[in-house]
């Protein structure tokens, strides 16, 4: 009997091609929207996580002030001193590299080419902490670090803009007021977690930046790489205790510095994208509901329009359940068809949009399955009422219906 109903339902769908198409349009769009949103959203989450892990895992960033940037009112807390860096390196257990950072910006000039970029003063520990290997050349020697020599290491973006195809190692160019010699080139890293170009950078020994550009010994940021064998939390605690002591913060006074765990950024950001994905998915789910109501609407019209047909079937000897099943199966078949078409469109759309939005395409079986089951459920829910109505028709009245 069930086989019969399916045959009948598909015959009816085939007979009314245009109407069937219009009926499922809502479901198609709804499913396509949900699946596309969630697929792209998951891709974005994965991308963010990957980019943040590319920042280097298990890195603590120590800055003066509280939270991001420097605190609002009141006297500004002092920057760190080189002695703080040494103290961290010598007194905190579980630290593999401690890289002080002093930042400046300036224009690099060479043979008519010029390029505005970020200048980061640091030490060779930076490359260990960041797990950022060299593409060519070498990192700073300790002699260069001690003397504050005018040597620099280029990010790939700066290299391309200043040197084109030439080999930059050993070449010289002007940056701000000094001439510096290129000793190395970093490997390409691409976009950072915040959409910034990580390769648009010139690295110099920190002393060089402090003396030539800043004129102070201040250190704005200290990057601390934690030994994977140690727990980040405990390292963070002893680091905090040391800095409180060195900065003379006693008792219940709040820290005038903050220690930021890159893992935290990762969690926060991927949490944000997940919430966004859920929100977009929810909005799309509403359109799926609207699609379901569309099915009910058209099925009701269809029942009225096919009253005579129902009368014929009843006269021929269809029992109420069979008529009901026919319309229900018809609604479910339409909804499922809509679901499948929607999923196909969603996959095509995701594949097309992923490179445009620069997120990886990740096929999520779960969401596709869920969308399909959901559209089938919509077929059942919104097909039930019209189907029941069809089944309850009186055969004599139905046959007379014009």
């Amino acid at each position, binding site marked *: 009997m069930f086989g019969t109903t399916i045959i009948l339902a598909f015959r009816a769908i085939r007979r009314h091609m245009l109407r069937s198409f219009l009926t499922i349009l809502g479901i198609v769009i709804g499913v396509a929207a949900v699946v596309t949103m969630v697929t792209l959203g998951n891709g974005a989450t994965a991308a963010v996580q990957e980019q943040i892990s590319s920042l280097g895992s298990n890195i603590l960033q120590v800055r003066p002030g509280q939270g991001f940037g420097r605190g609002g009112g009141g006297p500004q807390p002092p920057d760190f001193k080189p002695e703080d860096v040494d103290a961290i390196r010598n007194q905190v257990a579980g630290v593999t590299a401690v890289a002080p950072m002093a930042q400046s910006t300036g224009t690099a000039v060479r043979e008519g080419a010029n390029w505005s970029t970020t200048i980061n003063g640091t030490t060779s520990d930076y490359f260990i902490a960041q797990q950022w290997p060299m593409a060519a050349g070498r990192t700073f020697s300790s002699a260069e670090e001690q003397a504050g020599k005018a040597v620099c290491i280029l990010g790939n973006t700066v290299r391309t803009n200043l040197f084109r195809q030439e080999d930059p190692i050993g070449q010289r160019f002007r940056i701000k007021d000094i001439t510096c010699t290129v000793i190395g080139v970093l490997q390409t890293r691409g976009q950072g977690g915040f959409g910034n170009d990580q390769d648009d950078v010139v690295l110099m020994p920190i002393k060089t930046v402090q003396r030539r550009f800043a004129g102070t010994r201040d250190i704005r940021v200290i990057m601390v790489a934690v030994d994977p064998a140690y727990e980040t939390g405990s390292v963070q605690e002893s680091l905090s205790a040391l800095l409180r002591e060195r900065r003379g913060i006693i008792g219940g006074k709040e820290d005038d510095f903050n220690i930021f765990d890159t893992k935290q950024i990762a969690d926060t950001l991927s949490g944000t994208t997940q919430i966004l994905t859920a929100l977009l998915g929810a909005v799309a789910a509403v359109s799926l509901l609207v699609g379901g109501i569309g099915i009910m609407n058209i099925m009701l019209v269809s029942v009225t329009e096919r009253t005579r*047909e129902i009368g014929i079937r009843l*006269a021929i000897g269809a029992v109420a359940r069979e008529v009901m099943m026919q319309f229900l199966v018809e609604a479910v078949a339409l909804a499922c068809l809509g679901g499948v078409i929607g999923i196909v469109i969603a996959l095509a759309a995701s594949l097309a949009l992923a490179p445009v939005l620069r997120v990886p395409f990740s096929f999520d079986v779960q969401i596709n399955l869920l969308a399909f089951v959901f559209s089938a459920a919509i077929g059942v829910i919104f097909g039930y009422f019209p189907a029941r109505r069809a089944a309850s028709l009186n055969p004599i009245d139905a046959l007379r219906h014009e």
Partner: protein
Amino acid sequence: MTADAPIIQLRNVTKTFGSGPAAFQALKGVDLDIAAGDFVAVMGPSGSGKSTTMNILGCLDVPTSGAFLFKGVHVERLDRDQRALLRRKYFGFVFQGFNLLPRTSALENVELPLLYRGEEKHKRREVAMQALDKVGLKDWWDHTPGELSGGQQQRVAIARAIVTQPDVLLADEPTGNLDTARSLEIMELLSEFNATGITVLMVTHEPDMAAYARTVVHFRDGLVERVDQHHHQGQAVGS
């Protein structure tokens, strides 16, 4: 039930539509016996109760009071679905307006009752094609009702009605929408199927068509006015 007991028996059947002061009594106590294999024409003016009687005989409706026995079974005691199953098994219907499924091929239309009987595909095709052959439309099996003339549509409808080899064929003004030549073709077909043993019950307004029947039942004001027996044609068939 004995072999020559009437296949259909109506006993003091009444039917009232509506209730209270607006109630209308369509049947006022109909008694009627129809023998198996008979060809019955039901005649009478509009509102005489003949359509109501046909609906009850076709198990589409139930009497308000009285008894309707089909093969000895009290149909008035059956529920909706049981009557549907009775129709499926023993009845074929032909309507004035043909009532074929639109945009559906002649073959699929004829197959429909077989589908509800759960026949498998191969057998369905075969039996439906045979039925179409019997009404002379074998070559038109893949045409939809829209592509067929009125006479052809009614022949498809007859094929659909007889495809299950029913005991009773109910025809409600089967020639009402057709010209004389087509009408005669239809009557010839009905006579042919009657000759194979199918009891035919037909409502008609036209005496020319009623002349094909062996028994003519006249209705008036909700009652059977008189029953005429013709023997001009039935003699060839027997009894």
